[in-house]
């Protein structure tokens, strides 16, 4: 066995290593503070989940933002500096992350993947009067009553309707079951809009035969799915984090539930695909697809993404991150200054802005009205199925 001294030494080294890693962030923050906002850089703050349950989503988004920054590094003749902060997939940390960006005097903020995280960060930005561009939070409450929050994606009332319509009209469903994550505003909100649309489309008040809940981080869904199976629905709608949903969908098939399973835009993640790649009849809505480039910028994005990240799948979150960054630059350009309110006003007036995911016009809530894409899982890949235009 090891000597006592050796083990003690190993322990000391480990402790020091952890302490050093912990301090890294702090020093970086100090040096950033030293260069204040009167300097010759424009600071764009980014708060995204880079660790925790939504890490993959944050990572994809940040890849898109970094790519955009590399291609378009200047605005108003100044260099753009990204200040990226991890919100750890936790609501409290999301609020802290925005606080930290505000203290670092960023000119505009981008973020965050995950509606709950954005809803936690939103009020902090609003109080500080810093404009925020959401890349992929789809819950309507993110921008509601917050004149500083905007977004480049569609919202859940539309997304829920699209999926309900697809279930009823294309899959011929007459009944549906809902499996939702009660801790995620995204999941609960999207389920509600799906249910409303589904009832209306089928004309049947009792079309939802089962509704079961789980919590973020759960891994055992056997009981909930057994309940769903007993009710024998035509489709299952299960919007939620890609990690839980991967296990959930796999478990559903193990239990012998073979009806189509539908979800939302969060499902477009490598982790989800790894779990369910071999399974059939899995559909979800998303924002962007390589098969249907909508603007000139889409093609630019696709080529540059493939060059920058040759071993990665192009995805909607990278595209939305890319667009958020470009919209931020565009707004600063139109505002002609880095004054927060001038940028905010410029953002509010955004009309027909060309992004990789489509032309973006922001409505009075700061939301974008955009095309939804439906994809399915086939042979270990996400495959383009169809697209749905907004009304």
């Amino acid at each position, binding site marked *: *066995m*090891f000597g*006592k001294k050796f*083990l*003690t030494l190993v*322990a000391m080294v*480990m*402790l020091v*290593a*952890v302490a050093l*890693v912990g301090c890294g962030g702090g020093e970086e923050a100090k040096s950033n503070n030293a260069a204040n906002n009167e300097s010759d850089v424009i600071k764009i703050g980014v708060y995204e989940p*880079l*660790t*925790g349950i939504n*890490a*993959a989503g944050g*990572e994809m988004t940040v890849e898109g933002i970094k790519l955009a920054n590399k291609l378009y590094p200047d605005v108003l003749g100044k260099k753009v500096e990204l200040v990226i902060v991890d919100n750890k997939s936790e609501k409290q940390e999301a609020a802290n992350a925005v606080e930290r960006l505000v203290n670092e005097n960023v000119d505009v903020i981008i973020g965050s993947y995950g509606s709950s995280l954005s809803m936690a960060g939103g009020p902090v930005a609003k109080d500080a009067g810093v404009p925020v561009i959401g890349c992929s939070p789809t819950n309507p409450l993110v921008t509601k009553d917050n004149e500083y929050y905007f977004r480049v994606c569609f919202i859940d009332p539309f997304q829920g309707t699209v999926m309900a319509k697809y279930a009823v009209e294309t899959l011929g469903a007459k009944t549906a079951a809902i499996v939702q994550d*009660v801790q995620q505003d995204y999941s609960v909100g999207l389920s509600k809009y799906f249910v409303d649309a589904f009832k209306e489309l089928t004309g049947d008040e009792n079309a939802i035969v*089962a*509704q*079961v*809940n*789980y*919590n973020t*981080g*759960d*891994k*055992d869904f*056997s*009981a*909930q799915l*057994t*309940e769903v*199976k*007993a009710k024998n629905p035509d489709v299952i709608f299960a919007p939620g984090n890609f*990690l839980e949903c*991967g*296990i959930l969908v796999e478990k559903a098939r*193990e*239990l*012998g539930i073979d009806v189509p399973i539908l979800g939302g835009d969060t499902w477009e993640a490598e*982790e989800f695909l*790894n*779990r369910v790649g071999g399974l059939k009849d899995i559909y979800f809505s998303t924002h962007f697809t390589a098969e249907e480039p909508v603007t000139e910028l889409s093609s630019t994005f696709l080529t540059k993404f493939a060059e920058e990240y040759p071993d990665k799948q192009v995805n909607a979150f990278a595209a939305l991150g890319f667009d958020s960054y470009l919209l931020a630059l565009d707004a600063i350009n139109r505002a002609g200054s880095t004054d927060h309110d001038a940028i905010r006003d410029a953002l509010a007036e955004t009309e027909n802005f060309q992004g990789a995911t489509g032309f973006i016009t922001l409505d009075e809530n700061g939301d974008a009205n955009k095309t939804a894409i439906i994809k399915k899982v086939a042979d270990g890949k996400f495959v383009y199925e169809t697209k749905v235009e907004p009304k």
Partner: protein
Amino acid sequence: MTLETFLQNIANGISLGSLYALIAIGYTMVYGIIRLINFAHADLLMVASYAAFYGILVFALPWWVSFLLAIVITTILGISIEKIAYRPLRDAPRISALISAIGVSFLLENLGIVLLGARPKPFPRPEEVVWNIHLGGISFLSLAIIIPVITLVLLIAVNLIVNKTNVGIAMRAVSRDFETASLMAVDVNKVVVTTFAVGSGLAAVGGIMWSLQYPQIDPLMGVFPGLKCFIAAVMGGIGSVPGAMIGGFILGMGEVMLVGLMPELSGYRDAFAFVVLILILLFKPGGILGEHVVEKV
């Protein structure tokens, strides 16, 4: 609820309950001997899972070699933790050792995040161990049979070690009184190391089984089962090995049945565990099997 659904729920409950029981046994065994709630137990699960994961996927070892190695590595780590973090505090107030255990737990979790990355990894399921079983209308994984069997075998083995062997006699002596036992020529250090070796081995088996059942591993994966299984151990009477088994089954079966019988309450599933814990402790403060066996492990 139809008969089919009921049977399916029973199968789900057994597979969850036996997993809780398996992990709870490790908690209770360490507590029974040295009166320390080993918070790092939950993180040993994680270490074992990652060891097995890297063994299979990176070093391309056969699954059983990889699982055995994972158990060995975890056991060595468990013994080292005892030497570094618990032994120097053996004469300190009990609360100090407890805090030290929490510290070790955080250290392992954060080391995991830094060294292994925070993104979850898919745990491989060897076809020889995990397959789907369809019986009439109910379907379950082979694990729903394998895990209860392993749990039962380990339960019996631990009971035999504690009650029938010389080491076991020494363990029980140490559990009653450290000083007197050492005066009676019992090598306390050796007994404690053995306890931790067995406890860590149990954690490793629990971790591997957990990862097979829910095949997604991340550095914080131990937190949730750790908490639930600690509850199961306290429910059954902490220190009592059969108690941990009973506690685990009550908890697992209860959670599944709660969702099965009242689907609209399915979001309150975790709250259920705590409510049951409070109720049991109100009526039986020592836990279900706590009072009689607590001194004996």
